[in-house]
């Protein structure tokens, strides 16, 4: 079985060949190694790597919010990893170029205040809307300068995560 895995900036090709129950030959970008794997809980994996040396590492892998994404927890850090998503699905959100910025609610909450009006010029990292969640007011900011094109919510509105709040062109 061949699995395409997106970690960080790169897409890696992982070929798995089962040698025995729980034992695999894993070929990562052309380099083979032997791995012993066992599930330690619903999401836990214990890996013994490098053959005889038995280098032991553990991690948690759980489904992410969207299809083809899993969250991997390794020593206190959680990383989103793409599985078999193909190169076409690469995210472009981080691109620093021009284009429309859609400011969405990053978590469920309540819109407290709007800090801009349609047509306003905004600078990079300027606050445009304040959303309250978990008792804290969170100011959401632009990434780049632009002009406010649309205000999609009213103060006081309850919003779900992902709801479009402000569009900056």
């Amino acid at each position, binding site marked *: *079985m061949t*699995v395409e*895995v997106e*970690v*960080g900036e*790169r897409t*890696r090709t*992982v070929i*798995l060949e*089962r040698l025995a*129950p*729980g034992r*695999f030959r*894993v070929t*990562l970008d052309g380099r083979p190694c032997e*791995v012993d*794997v*066992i*599930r*330690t*809980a*619903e*999401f*836990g*994996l214990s*890996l013994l*790597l490098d053959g005889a040396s038995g280098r032991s*590492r553990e*991690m*948690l*892998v*759980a489904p992410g919010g969207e299809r083809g994404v*899993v*969250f*991997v*927890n*390794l*020593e*206190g*850090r*959680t*990383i989103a*990893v793409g*599985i*078999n998503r193909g190169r076409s699905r690469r995210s472009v959100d981080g691109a620093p170029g021009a284009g429309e910025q859609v400011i969405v609610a*990053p*978590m*469920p*909450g309540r819109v*407290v*205040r709007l800090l801009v009006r349609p047509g306003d010029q905004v600078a990079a990292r300027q606050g445009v809307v304040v959303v*309250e*969640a*978990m*008792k*804290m*007011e*969170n100011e959401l900011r632009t990434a780049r300068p632009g002009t406010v094109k649309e205000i999609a919510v009213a103060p006081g509105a309850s919003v779900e995560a992902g709801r479009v709040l402000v569009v900056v062109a």
Partner: protein
Amino acid sequence: MKILIANRGEIAVRVIRACREMGIPTVAVFSDCDRGARHVSEADQAIHVGPSEATRSYLDIGALLEAARRSEATAVHPGYGFLAENAAFASACLEAGLMYIGPAPEAIALMGSKTAARQAARRAGVPVVPGTDEPFGPDVSEREIAAAAEEVGYPLLVKAVAGGGGKGLRVVSHRGDLPSAIQLARSEAGAAFGDSQIYLERRILQPRHVEIQLLGDARGTVVPFVERECSIQRRHQKVVEESPSPVVTPALRRRMAEAAASVARLVGYTNAGTIEFLLDRDGAFYFLEMNTRLQVEHPVTEMVTSIDLVQWQIRISRGEALDVDPERALTPHGHAIECRIYAEDPDQGFLPSPGLIRALRPAGGPGIRDDSGVAAGYTVPVHYDSLIAKLVAWASARDEAVARMARALREYHVLGIRTTIPFFLWLLRQPAFLEARFDTNYLDALLAERQGATFSELEPGEEDLVAIGAALDAWLRAGGAGDNGRRAVERVSAWHRLARRESLRE
């Protein structure tokens, strides 16, 4: 005695633990979204008090008193936050014939008003940070406040009279920013505390936040404890606390402890409380405020003194004499550090990260204490504070406690929601932190420098490991044919197998 805990989350669990150790039955309260919360299942009884909105459940005095009546509780522990510093709630408990595990309502009202507390500190001969002593109500104009600001001097802080935890607090460096700061502080304070009164305070440059825990009993005995260092703050919210402070000498400790005790004695304070001070570069300290409740960070004090503060709260309320050895309370044994694990995503500007906890494995082992309010399968609600657990490390010296904390943070697995664990792993490597060279502005300045860089960076070798693990996980999930025998935990539960066997028998 039966204690109703008018709170939720980790602090409710903490109080239940103290009660269990003392053989006292407990009653938990819960809102709609907290039915599955840990404090509910760990208490002896649990009573539903209302919808998820805090104002209609954990802040609803009538509903809480009704729960106490129905459960035949005889005492109420308020925890921290919610109604913990609400004099009306304390009074209502007493009027309903319940014991209130905390100070007298009069002390809460007096010290809860930051401006009245400053006046009390002055009367006790303790220096206070320069600022306005009269609160500004909602009807006071921005122009009037601006005039007072000129006398206080910039930079200054706009603070909620009823404030706490950084809520309703704004820093103003330039005159022009004052109006928006007043507006934000008023609205945040109104929403969080139901009181939008504010006051102004001069900003002490490069201060450390050092506080003195104390206990007082009904006979007038006041015992101050070794200080806590709480200078590691993000946007005025404490994130790491330790005891003792790396910069407080035994002589300074005695002076601060005596100052704190004299304020408490002056107001006839009983039960647990904390006096917060700012300590400037030259070792001068100023009264900041008093918290008339148990603090979030009380465990570090417990770890270095081996004195259980929650049990003492209960004993004092029962009228017992405070017979804690003052020398033991003031002499730290070893060093303790606490990291507040919040359901926040440090890689996205610490935005709240509520949701389902799919997997959780807390840290353990020597010198580790995990005060947690959550479990796997619980959905962290959007309605409340995002603190899910406090991880405390104790060791004989500070550097050992830091190393132990880093070890424990690596052990601590939380999956499903984002937490501040990766941020702490980064912070614990910073040279200034390791050398204890910091003030209350340190963390915000350090975070600003990073310009939002991720804390969850993988090293090159780790990327390989993650790729291999994720691929193997996909294989196992896609069927994992023939490998069931190698699974330590099978998907088919023992109950299913039993049911299957039973049906075959028929």
